[in-house]
């Protein structure tokens, strides 16, 4: 619900419907990709987190690094939903839109709630920029924005004025616009400026004049809010802190959480971590993060291509490190053959797939969940591999640890699915205590394990896993490879019996993982009933909020959110059969739905979205209403 508005708009982002004090606000900052909108959003997020609000963010930026200025396709946006209640999504429709130029207005205003507030920089609404945004007449003047409240003033000029004492060039001075805007936003939501001032001082430690100019712009924006309060639609608002469990909190993005989770997983396994990666959006952030954590026994290797990245990781696993690689759809496709080798040689490996829109290059910076088939089925031969999906940035930490556990305990590659949304989005995170996780130390084979001192690299334990033999161990020399092998010695053996036995063994081992994972719980609601919404990955937030709202209206609907996508939890089939209807919202054309239908013969129905944007709560609410109508 809007905080800054006189009238109460429709569509709430959470919380009690009729409270005079809104629980949550959605703000979207939109500007040119060179305007620093992601940075503005990130800093606003931090201030909001420090103020104790729960929050979720959605950075939405173009694939081009510096798209031509002022163009529609060059618009970069950052949306944040924050409030005094539990926040699971970046919010459906913004209450406030900050538009730094005409193109930003044009591409974003459609999403704004009726009655919402537009803050626009008139300094950028000149003839040239209007033309680039394909406006014949300035929308600020032709009445086309009537259903919203418009606060238009010359932020550019106000910024130039504020930073005048520092003698910057025009271009550099205008770069401070985002700080001016942030100052205004901080005032609107009664946020402390000090953490930001400290951050600017640190960032520009070597160029104090830039720090001073940015701080001056920030303060000027803030002061503008104070003086403008007397008239117009601008109102200051204070959102109470959200109720959360006691403890230490920070904000975390999915990419950070995965990086930390991998480090934690390797520590719990008692191993050093080897990460082979190749630059690709949006997966690169994990490589960036890990490259700075060398003191944790992390070796990062930027390979010559995606194949070399996974190959090096497998080579490192053969040498006794925990090999990890990461990519997005196109890169994962390239890694397919090597995944097959890791499955065939039965070496531990974690593959992180930060999904993006596809096929092919698709939508590099937009989110999608369309690599599920690729993860579960996408290799030649019968090549079973466990797949885990993270539901949020903070959940990604635990998922990464779980992926490491499965990899080393079952001697198998494991795919961890995340997506562009989770990788980039930030949310508050209750800092976990690493000591609270149960260690799963690896024991390497040190002595011959067969009769008469024979080495049997493909002997199996009760879980069906083979021993891990570190290359270099005295007395245990053996050869492994991608050709079918003898069930015990691992020597080349493509006899019919051998291939049957080994295929069964590889499948049985992965199927058996179902016994080592928790039973599927009902995430929200009851076991059994009319309708279950079954989700996986980053659709958790909108499904959760939609089910919450529907249940508040008395509808018989429950949420089941699946982390272990393959193999599935043992009780999932029975659980699904306890509902009359099963609806599967996914950002793809129905992949998990197909898996569920195949595995359980349940009449799972799809709810699909492939626009590169996350589901809104309203979309899922509407689908629930339609299903139960």
């Amino acid at each position, binding site marked *: 619900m809007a905080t800054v508005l006189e009238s109460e708009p429709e569509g709430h982002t959470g919380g009690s419907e009729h409270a005079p004090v809104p629980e949550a606000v959605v703000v979207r900052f939109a500007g040119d990709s060179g305007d620093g909108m992601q940075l503005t959003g990130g800093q606003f997020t931090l201030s909001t987190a420090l103020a104790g609000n729960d929050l979720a963010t959605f950075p939405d930026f173009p694939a081009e690094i510096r798209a031509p200025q002022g163009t529609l396709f060059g618009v970069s946006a950052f949306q944040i939903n924050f409030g005094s209640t539990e926040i699971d999504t970046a919010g459906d429709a913004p209450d406030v839109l900050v538009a730094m130029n005409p193109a930003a207005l044009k591409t974003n205003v459609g999403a704004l709630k009726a009655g919402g507030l537009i803050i626009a920089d008139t300094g950028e609404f000149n003839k040239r920029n209007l033309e680039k945004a394909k406006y014949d007449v300035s929308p600020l003047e032709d009445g086309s924005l009537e259903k919203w409240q418009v606060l238009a003033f010359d932020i550019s000029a106000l910024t130039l004025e504020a930073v005048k004492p520092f003698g910057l060039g025009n271009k550099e001075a205008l770069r401070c616009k985002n700080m001016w805007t942030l100052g205004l936003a901080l005032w609107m939501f009664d946020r402390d400026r000090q953490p930001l001032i400290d951050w600017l001082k640190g960032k520009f430690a070597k160029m104090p004049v830039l720090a001073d100019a940015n701080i001056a712009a920030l303060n000027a924006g803030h002061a503008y809010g104070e003086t403008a309060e007397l008239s117009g639609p601008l109102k200051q608002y204070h959102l109470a802190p959200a109720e959360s469990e006691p403890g230490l909190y920070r904000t975390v993005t999915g990419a950070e959480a995965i990086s930390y989770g991998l480090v934690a997983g390797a520590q719990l396994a008692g191993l050093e971590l080897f990460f082979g990666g190749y630059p690709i959006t949006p997966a690169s952030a994990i490589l960036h993060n890990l490259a700075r954590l060398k003191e*944790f026994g992390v070796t990062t290797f930027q390979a010559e291509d995606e194949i070399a990245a996974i190959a090096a990781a*497998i080579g490192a*696993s053969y*040498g006794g490190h925990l090999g990890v690689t990461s990519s997005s759809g196109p890169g994962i496709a390239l890694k397919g053959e090597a995944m097959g080798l890791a499955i065939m040689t039965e070496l531990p490996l974690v593959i992180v797939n930060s999904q993006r829109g596809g096929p092919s290059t698709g939508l590099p910076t937009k989110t999608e969940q369309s690599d599920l088939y690729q993860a579960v089925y996408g290799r030649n031969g019968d090549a079973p591999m466990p797949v885990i999906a993270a539901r949020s940035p903070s959940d990604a930490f635990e998922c990464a640890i779980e992926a490491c556990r499965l990899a080393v305990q079952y001697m198998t590659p494991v795919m961890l699915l995340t997506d562009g949304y989770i990788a980039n989005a930030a949310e508050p995170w209750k*800092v976990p205590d690493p000591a609270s996780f149960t260690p799963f130390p690896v024991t390497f084979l040190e002595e011959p394990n067969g009769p008469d001192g024979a080495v049997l690299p493909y002997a199996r334990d009760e879980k069906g896993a083979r021993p891990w033999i570190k290359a270099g161990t005295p007395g245990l020399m053996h050869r492994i490879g991608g050709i079918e092998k003898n069930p015990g010695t691992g020597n080349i053996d493509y006899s019919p019996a051998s291939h049957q036995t080994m295929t069964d063994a590889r499948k049985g081992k992965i199927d058996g993982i179902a016994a080592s994972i928790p039973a599927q719980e009902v995430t929200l609601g009851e076991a059994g009933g009319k309708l279950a919404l079954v989700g996986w990955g980053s659709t958790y937030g909108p499904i959760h909020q939609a089910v919450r709202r529907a249940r508040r209206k008395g509808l018989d609907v429950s949420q089941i959110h699946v982390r272990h996508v393959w193999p599935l939890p043992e009780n999932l089939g029975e659980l699904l059969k306890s509902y009359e209807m099963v609806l599967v919202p996914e950002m793809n054309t129905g992949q998990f739905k197909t898996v569920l239908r195949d595995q359980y013969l349940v009449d799972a129905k799809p709810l699909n979205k492939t626009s590169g944007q996350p589901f809104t709560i309203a979309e899922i609410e509407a689908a629930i209403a339609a299903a139960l109508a």
Partner: protein
Amino acid sequence: MNDMTPIKTTLKDWETDQEVRWCPGCGDYAILKAVQRVLPEIGADPAKTVFVSGIGCSSRFPYYVESYGFHTIHGRAPAFATGLKLANPELDVWLVTGDGDGMSIGGNHTMHVLRRNLNTQILLFNNEIYGLTKGQYSPTSRMGTVSPTTPLGSVDRPASPCAFALGAGGRFIARAYDVSKELPAVLKAAHAHQGAAFVEIFQNCIVYNKDVFADFTEKAGAAMGQLWLAHGEPLLFNKGTKGIALDTETLSLKVVDVVDGDWQAAGVRVHDVKNRAMAHLLVEMPFGPFPMALGVIYDDPRPTFEAAVIEERARASAGKTANLAKLLSKGQTWTVE
């Protein structure tokens, strides 16, 4: 190679119980024997030795050596070896590849393992044909090669593995052929080199490309066709009656006659393994007008990739403790009471 305590072994110790499955008469047998002969001579430790290969006839090699071995996927062996070596730098890693595996599908990895200078021996068996897939022409096949995919003869120009390796930044480039008695010495020199050591081994595929190197490997053509290089020795062949000189006008090599052994008078060059410019000329020498340059063509070590990675890791970790709890609570935090 790696510095390690020499281990006493015999050729027998390096044989596995696996039946060797190359075609009878294949040049690979001779290369396998040469390697198994060299390993005891250099004091290699089977437990610390790893053979990593890709796909192809040559890549079956690891199964026949009693050490650690990893038969990986087509063309990617250098990448597996890189991860392995970074995880455990004390391993002595040999890469076995072929002209299809290393120059075609894996050309990219061959380039980068050389550029990075991973401390490993790279043995590229060049038989100028795809053997395991039944005889298609390869990237090193000569123009006009008739094969199932080129029934009218191939029209594309062949790649030169040694020229490629040198161009990629290789610091050790050598050439030999399968049945040469010099092969063990070349392998030993490759092993002694700290860094990526690239050895092209001409290998006779008796089924699909028989005798393609016979012009210089057979006795009749050996004297005129083979130029064996030795550091500090003149570039002489044909029993010392011919030599290689540098035409300083055109900056190219030329064959000169040597009369009464006076190679200096004929202007014959002395081989210097550290002369990179000469190495370029020697690997590019066209066979026919010139003999085939064999032996160690270039050998000028520089720091290895894994040493740099280890050094950097040590530098980045110096004075830091790996405290995960501290890492997780890094940055701006707040406490909820």
